[in-house]
């Protein structure tokens, strides 16, 4: 089983956490307790209610052992900062983060750091539909 950390209990984060928790070890982090509580029996992972900008939180979540890290909070800058640090300091192999701004995708993308932009992605899919 892979060890996966998800930061941000957004809609995407929740769906991903629920699905992956059937096959992998999943830890989800959010600073909003209500969002974490919205998981019912359908989630088989661990929930951590804390601030992801605090390295203690990341270490408590087991970042040193993680195979993959998803950063899916609605906050572009938080996703980017934690993503960069996870790569530089903790040498996580697979880091996937979401940003809303297309410009930031260009600046911050680097090897081992996949930056996903929903609008861009949807555009690509839409283009494929007519090709």
């Amino acid at each position, binding site marked *: 089983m892979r060890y996966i950390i998800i930061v941000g209990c957004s809609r995407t984060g929740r769906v991903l956490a629920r699905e992956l928790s059937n096959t992998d070890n999943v830890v989800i982090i959010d600073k909003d307790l209500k969002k974490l509580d919205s998981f019912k029996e359908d989630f088989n992972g661990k929930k951590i209610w804390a*601030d992801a*900008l*605090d*390295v*203690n939180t990341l270490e408590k979540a087991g970042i040193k052992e993680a195979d993959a890290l998803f950063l899916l909070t609605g*906050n*572009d*800058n*938080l996703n*980017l*900062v*934690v993503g*960069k*640090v996870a790569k*530089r*300091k903790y040498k996580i192999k697979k880091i996937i983060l979401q940003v809303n*701004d297309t*410009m*930031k995708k260009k*600046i911050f993308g680097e090897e081992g750091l996949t930056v996903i932009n929903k609008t861009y992605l949807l555009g690509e899919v839409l283009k494929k539909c007519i090709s």
Partner: protein
Amino acid sequence: MYIVIAGAGRLGLILAKRLTEDKHQVCLIDKSQRLCGLLARELDKVMIICGDATYPEILREAQIEKADVSVAATSGDEDNIIISYLAKELFGIKRTVSRVNDPKHIPLYKYMKVDNPVDSTSIIARVVEEEASFSDVMNLLSIKKGRLSIVRVDIPENSPVANKSLKDIKLPANSVLISILRGPEIVIPSGSTSILPGDEIIAATLIDSEADLTKSLIGKV
């Protein structure tokens, strides 16, 4: 100097005012349109830019590439880190200063190579601590991650060094007296200088010797 400040909160604002008074050129960036409108009228010497400073195009508008220093003073630590990161990596700013809102976030500032993260919470906590301890010794400045301290020591009446000249006083190793503040006078000490009760002594000491220095100047720790 040309200084770009992101975030026109209380800190950003006071900084902008002081720096313009000192004849520096200042550009202030803030997200709030309302605030920027007010500031544009109030601060006629400061260039005001309304926008999110974590976006490169806003920083470019502020001509950050010409800046000597960038200051990230917003209330979001993730924003401050990104602003400093862009300033450094994208625009080649040599010196990035940032306000740290939550001391727990300091490691991230370090990993992201912000040159000077200023942790006001810890600074204030230390000042309060110093005041509350009623100590005759006050730490004025810590250098090299706290290994070297500049301290101020008030000499009491019963000090073991009162009325002695410096050449007769044995100070611990790794400590040196820098100056003596005596009323309005500043005395740069030499061997024949005497220490009087009521003097305020400014000294530099390595952190390990601080207790010994205190003991030799005021008699107790």
